[in-house]
Structure formats: structure tokens, C-alpha cells
């Protein structure tokens, strides 16, 4: 696989030159934080963010997305027949993705792309995307990717990886898509063994120094009903506001709602992010709600990520350790602590 080294200025210039091949998205400063935006909106590009406030999942799975369009005009012979909404699935490059967010794509794929059903929008949007990662030289105190199967230089889910070497970026292709991306980038020089070694050693050092703080090893073997009935859920949930911050910021939360909207005789069916924190999420037409209580909804979120997912797929947890929910939960409900409670739980003790 190809490797290239760019001076930082040359790299920024090269990204600007990709427009005819890709729609390029990258983290841009947006007020107090960073958000993935098209490169055309960039006033200044700097790769010095911890991470974006929202994960890049919205580029693949937008908060609101048109699924179908239809006419309700009785004169229209095609009235009431749903047509797929047109989409732009031309190639796009998502540049500067932190490894946790790329790892999340693989975790979410199991939901949207499985042997029985494939979600056409998610699948096509992912196929159109080239993920160019940025290794983390300085993981945050709230990061715990290493505890959940990833790491600050984890390559899973990435097509290419940038390594920040101070005044230069080493960019390594990891997949065919990444190879193609790198072939389209102008400038840079082939990386020599010395640079590669420098990058390897940096990755190794950062990974080794990152603490592995969140235990997940026992989750798989603990009985599901024991965890479900564990005594700590009321206490964990007390402060929860039942807002959607954790789920909306999360790179691995995929739940959605489907809604129809009509204006005059035109209609659309769209899907919107939804959240297990909202009571409406599970409310039956009869008025019965299986998760009527706040603690039940909080329990669902953690059990889904840390137990149901583990049981369903037999591999990994539904969390990539990005730490967004830890940092931005308005009431400081910390998944690291909850995971610790679950993992250490002794049924009947």
C-alpha cells in the first residue's frame, strides 16, 4: 500500500485540489467546537481538534433523511405510490476521522447491513465514502477506545490514516479506496523507512501510555436477566434528564423514527434520529409503555450497548470509547462508571 509524506501546508493544498474527484468533508471550527463540513466552507483548516462535537455518523446517517417521495394529487396516476428520494452518492472523502469514529462504523454495520436486510441508504452512503483517519497523538482523559477494542491508532474502518509528525503528515493507504484516494492527492513524497519507523514508534508509544480503564471482560458471561434486574439502575438513572444528548452525539447509536410529512399534495417519508431516552420511543397505540420509567430507559441504553449487543453479535460492545457522552452528558452520567458497575456485578451477592 502507498505511503506519502506531506508538509502540513502541502497537505492542506492537496485536499483543496481533490474537488473534482471527491466531495471532501473535514472537521471545521464552528463556534466553540468542530463540526464535519464541506471543505468549501473552510476559512481555515487545522487538524488540532480533540474530536468533533458530533460524530461523523451524520454524514452517512443524517439526523433527518428523505426516504421516499409521493404525490397525493388525485389527478396523478402515480398518486400514493412511493418513489425513492434522489440521493447524491458520488464519492466523498471524510478526512480527519478519529479512529474511534471509524471503529464505530464497523459496529453499526452489523445493524444496517446484515444477512437478512440491507439498509439501502446507509449502505450506499458508506460505499461512497472514503474514510481518511487521523491518529490520536494525545488521547483525551475521557477517551477509552483502548478498553473497547480500538485504540488511538486503530486502523479498523479506515481507508487511509494520517499521522501527525509535527511539521508533516504521513498518509498511509490501508484499503483499495485509500489507495485510490492517495493516488488522486497531488504532491507529497513517498515515505522512506525512517518516517514510517517514526510513525510506528509514535503510535506504539501513545497506545502503550494510554490507560486501559474500563473493564468489559465479564459482560459476555453475566446472565442477561441478572444484569437487567441488578439493583444499581435506579441510582444510575437518578440524575438523567432523558434528553437525547448521549444518543445523538454517539457514533454507534443508530435508532431512528419514520415519519410522513405532507405539504399541499406533495408528501415525503423521512427518517429522523430517535432516542431510547424518549418515552415516546416505545409507547404503544393502546397507551401502554413497556419502558415507562426513566430508569428503564436508561437501563435500555446501557444494556443495549454493553450486554444485548455483546450477546447478539458475540463480539465487542456497542461503544467505540470516544467519550462524547462522558464529556457532554449534561448531568454527568458516565458510561465508564456504569460499565464498571455492570462488569463487576455479582448476581445474588
Amino acid at each position: 500500500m502507498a505511503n506519502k509524506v506531506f508538509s502540513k501546508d502541502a497537505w492542506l493544498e492537496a485536499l483543496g485540489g481533490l474537488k473534482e474527484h471527491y466531495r471532501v468533508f473535514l472537521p471545521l471550527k464552528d463556534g466553540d467546537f468542530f463540526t464535519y463540513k464541506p471543505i468549501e466552507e473552510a476559512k481555515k483548516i487545522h487538524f488540532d481538534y480533540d474530536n468533533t462535537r458530533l460524530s461523523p455518523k451524520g454524514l452517512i446517517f443524517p439526523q433527518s433523511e428523505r426516504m421516499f417521495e409521493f404525490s397525493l394529487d388525485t389527478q396523478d396516476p402515480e398518486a400514493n405510490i412511493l418513489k425513492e428520494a434522489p440521493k447524491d452518492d458520488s464519492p466523498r472523502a471524510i478526512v480527519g476521522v478519529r479512529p474511534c469514529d471509524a471503529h464505530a462504523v464497523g459496529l453499526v454495520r452489523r445493524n444496517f447491513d446484515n444477512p437478512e436486510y440491507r439498509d439501502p441508504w446507509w449502505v450506499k452512503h458508506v460505499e461512497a465514502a472514503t474514510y481518511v483517519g487521523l491518529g490520536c497523538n494525545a488521547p483525551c482523559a475521557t477517551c477509552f477506545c483502548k478498553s473497547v477494542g480500538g485504540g488511538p491508532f486503530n486502523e479498523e474502518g479506515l481507508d487511509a490514516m494520517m499521522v501527525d509528525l509535527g511539521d508533516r503528515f504521513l498518509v498511509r493507504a490501508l484499503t483499495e479506496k485509500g489507495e485510490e484516494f492517495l493516488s488522486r492527492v497531488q504532491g507529497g513524497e513517498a515515505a522512506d523507512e525512517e518516517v514510517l519507523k517514526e510513525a510506528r514508534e509514535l503510535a506504539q508509544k501513545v497506545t502503550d501510555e494510554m490507560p486501559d480503564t474500563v473493564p468489559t471482560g465479564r459482560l459476555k458471561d453475566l446472565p442477561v436477566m441478572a444484569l437487567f434486574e441488578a439493583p444499581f439502575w435506579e441510582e444510575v438513572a437518578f440524575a438523567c434528564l432523558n434528553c437525547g444528548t448521549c444518543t445523538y452525539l454517539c457514533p454507534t447509536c443508530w435508532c431512528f423514527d419514520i415519519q410522513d410529512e405532507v405539504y399541499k399534495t406533495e408528501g415525503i417519508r423521512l427518517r429522523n434520529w430517535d432516542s431510547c431516552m424518549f418515552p415516546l420511543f416505545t409507547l404503544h397505540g393502546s397507551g401502554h409503555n413497556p419502558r415507562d420509567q426513566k430508569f428503564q430507559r436508561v437501563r435500555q441504553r446501557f444494556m443495549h450497548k454493553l450486554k444485548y449487543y455483546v450477546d447478539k453479535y458475540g463480539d465487542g460492545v456497542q461503544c467505540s470509547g470516544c467519550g462524547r457522552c462522558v464529556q457532554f452528558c449534561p448531568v454527568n452520567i458516565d458510561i465508564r462508571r456504569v460499565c464498571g458497575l455492570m462488569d463487576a456485578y455479582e448476581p445474588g451477592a
Partner: protein
Amino acid sequence: MIQYTDKIREIAGRLLKDGTVEVFIGYRKGTVPMMNEPVLIRDPDQVDTLHWDVNCGLNLCNYLTRRTEKIGILATGCNSRNIVTHIIENQIKREQLYIVGIPCTGMVDHRAVKRAVGGKEILSAEQQGEKLIVKGADFEKTFEIKEILQSNCAVCRHRNPVEVDEMVADPVPEQEGVEPYKDVESVEGMEPRKKWEFFTRLISRCLRCYACRNACPLCYCPTCFVDESRPQWVGKSNDPTDTMTFHFLRAYHCAGRCTDCGACERVCPVGISMRQFTKKLNKDAEELFSWEAGLTLEQRPPLDVYRPDDYNDFIK
């Protein structure tokens, strides 16, 4: 705020032990800097988890609704005004509460601090008296707390609780000469189109996560208007008109009830200043009805009662 913390623990322990209250609602120290977690304590042996500092900016009144026990609760000026509002609106009974009053000199604006250190990761933020000492991997910075207050606290005129059973310390002097509505006035001076642009830009990042609504003690309806499906008042996507409808109506439901506690802004994951909506209503309530919410149990709120001399210039 070590003296407040010690005193809070002492009071909570006493109340739980002597049976004055069955539960005590306060804060525990958070797992990340500038974040404390509301906590409910039943056992007097757990009072040492209670904590107080300048990062207790949520509104604990939120946790009272639909509780049936005898409750001990911490209350700053604004929190106590929300408790009063809760009592007036029959959400809790006065007899159910033991209110532990906190003379408050304001909460720290965690976003302002983060901004002031250039957006760098903050590893610790410790309060030492009037100062906040903030440390990161490669920096240390000391702030005067009064320079980094939440914007609602900076213009607060009711720092001392209005309804208490016991105070943790002597009242603090109220701020004189604050101009609480300067920002509202600057919007009032705009042309309609500019105002629309101002508010459109203000909420453009909104995710409809409803943290603002849910952090607000005034929002306790069993089903919120945004969740109703029959009729569906507002669309559920992130369409800008629907988002504006949500913010406009959410604010409107707070008319004459908002204490400007700032919880809505504090919790917003994308930093929207939604107090720009509610403050206009507060200003009108004050100018047209001489009303500030939650100052007394003795008077019904202006939107609750009719008086022949009510402001009615808008009716033709």
C-alpha cells in the same frame, strides 16, 4: 466551597438520621471537570458523597416532580424560586420539603472557561475561594470566578433563596446595578428581518435533543406538545421551521414562570443561548406586570389571574 460542602453533609446527615426527611437531593462531585452530578441520598452514611462548588448549575427542582417522600433539597436563589413555582403550580407540597438554602454567588460558565484556554482539554478545575484553578496537559490558568460566571448568574438579582427551612451560611449581598436585559434590548432595536435572522442563526445548530426542555423544572407536562401525534403540532425532523416552532413554543410555555436559572443553556450540547427567548418574556413580565417568578408563595402568577388593570394594549 469546602465550608458549604461540610455544612451540607452535616445538615443532610442530621435530617436523614432524625427522620425529618426520607431522601436528600444534592450533588456529588463529577467525573469530569466542571460537571457535578445530581444525586439522591437515602442513607445518612452516604452523606460524604455530597459536594458543593461553582459547578452546581443544574436545577434540582427538576427532580421533585411526582415524588411522594419527605424530601430534603438544596436550593440557591433561582432553585428556590422554582420550588416556589412548583408549589404554586401544585407539583409538590411545601410540607413535603425541607429546603436547605444556599447563598449563591454564581456558577461557572464551563464554555467560557474552555474558550479562555483556547479550546484545549481541561484535566482539572478546582475552586479555591474566589478563584478557579484550571489545569491541562501543558497549561495552568487561574480565573477570578466573577469573571467567568454563567451569563444568567452575572445579572442575577436574587442570589439568596426566597423560601428556606435552614441556611448553610449567612446571606450574601445582592448584586446592585445589574442590567439584566441589555441583550434583549439590543434585539428589540432590530428590524423584523434582522430579528428573524438573529434567532434563525441562534438555533441553527439545534439537534432537537430536548436537553433544554428536560433540564427545565417548568417542563413537567406528561406529554410535551412536540411529542403529541394527534394532532401533530410540530414536525419531528431538524427542519429549521419545526426547530423554530419548538424553541418559540417551549419559551412561551415558560412565560411568567422562568427564574432565569440558566439550566437550559448550561446543558445544551451545542451551546445555544435559548435564554434569548425566555428573557424577552421575563422582561415583559417585569415591565408589564411588575412580576418576577417565584419570589413569593402569596401571589398568583400574572398569567394565572385576571385583574381589571392588566396590560391589554395588544387587544383591539
